[in-house]
């Protein structure tokens, strides 16, 4: 099973390199063969937010000053259980009030029988999203 682990920070990271401790932490995830992806996010000033109301999209450019918790980065890991992820990420070297949110990712096998169509649609949606963003890749 796969999990998304999101870092929520109270202050934004601004191009700081990950600390040596964070490097070592990520290294243990690689060493144990469970890290699928890990990315840090640029400040929200470079981002935008789209909210939907009454079927209309309203775009707000960053920074998202009113938000107390900003998503600052994420991991995708493959683990045997939620407990494994909790145990591993309890050792994550944060110390500035960050928090981590662990969420399990839906897999095709989570849908069965008549729900197959849902799985198909999810996969298509995902593929569509990817097609939009992968034009620059070889």
């Amino acid at each position, binding site marked *: 099973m796969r999990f998304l682990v999101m870092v929520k920070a109270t202050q934004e990271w601004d191009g700081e390199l990950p600390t040596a401790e964070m490097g070592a932490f990520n290294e243990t995830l690689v060493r144990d063969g469970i890290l699928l992806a890990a990315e840090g996010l640029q400040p929200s000033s470079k981002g935008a937010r789209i909210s939907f109301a009454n079927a209309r999209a309203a775009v707000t450019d960053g920074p998202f000053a009113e938000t107390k918790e900003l998503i600052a980065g994420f991991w995708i890991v493959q683990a*045997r259980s939620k407990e494994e992820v909790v145990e591993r990420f309890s050792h994550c070297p944060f110390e500035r009030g960050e928090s981590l949110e662990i969420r399990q990712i839906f*897999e095709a096998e989570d849908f069965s029988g008549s729900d197959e169509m849902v799985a198909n649609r999810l996969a298509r949606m995902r593929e569509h999203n990817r097609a939009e963003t992968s034009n620059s890749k070889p």
Partner: protein
Amino acid sequence: MTRPEQVRAIEAVWGIESPRLVAALTRVVRDVGLAEEFAQDAFVAALSQWASDGIPRNPGAWLMSVAKRRAIDYFRRAETAETKYRLLGHELQTEEPEESIFAALDDDYIADDLLRLMFVACHPVLPVEARVALTLRLLGGLSTTEIARAFLSSEPAIAQRIVRAKRSLAAARVPFEVPDAAQRTQRLASVLEVVYLIFNEGYSASSGDDVLRPELMQEALRLGRVLAELAPGESEVHGLVALMELQSSRARARIGRSGEPVLLLDQDRARWDQMLIRRGFAALGRAERLGQSLGPYALQAAIAACHARARTAKETDWARIAALYDALAQVHPTPVVRLNRAVAVGMAFGPGSGLELVDALLAEPSLKAYHLLPSVRGDLLEKLRRFGEARAEFERAAAMAHNARDRELLLARAARCARA
């Protein structure tokens, strides 16, 4: 926290820490069975102490120090010097040998220990099923219950298999080492074979019903990735990782709505997992950059990569696949590889060229009962509009097919040829 949650959390720690613990202990006590016992003792101690005190900051070090103490007690109690010598081998030199030896149990060595443990668990003195069970137990940190469930086998059967394997290793005095250059290629091949067997057990579910067992696929992938970190200079290790990442990227597209298998060219490519495909490409790149000529796993991965790169089945680069099968047939010249090569050549250069290669395989004894031979031949003949011969081949293939679903499909194609 309630009690079952606590146990699950401690079990999770065990899953994470036990391979390294057992590996480091084996280096010192020279016996995987004994090493695992000390590690288990530490786990039992953890279950009772952590339940009241909580999980310590560095659980790996905690477990290691308890296991160490158990091992030292054991040696102190060992009755004769001869036993001590047998257990500790040549390292028994100082007055207080245990303390000094265990002092060396630190992180720097553990990566090497894990690699040694992989070679030991996959040692050729063991039957293949024993290698698989021992690898999952020692390097996967899976319990006997979990292994039994994954292989649809009974727990006592798996437990016995593991006990026997440990005994065979001790009896054969298998050294705890990475094999030297002369043996390395052959021994590494055994490790890779075991990992790939575990993967395929999950991917094709050889026993039982048709469902994929994703946990075995994922465990094999994890083991492969760990191995790639431990032996980064081995092109075939990256080749195997690439092959597994690319194959598992298609796992969810392989099963149709009513549970029927869907062939590669008929799969809905939107359901392929792009993250795994990218990881597969990256691992294949590492295999290629090592500059050795590609081995069987990397070549199969390169073939899988050709499929992954094609946005539609029509865009498949069959000429390149045919060339890769050429290379694969040279390093791994099995009849099945040659048959696959014939298929690729047929797709790339026309059914006539493919048929020539298939016909050369007709006398092959190992393919006599292989339904894909007449099935491939029927397909090529049908494309050449030689419908009478094609029909006969499909009917022959149907008679050889192992499951009802394949048989139905083949008979339907035979009927179509009869109408043409």
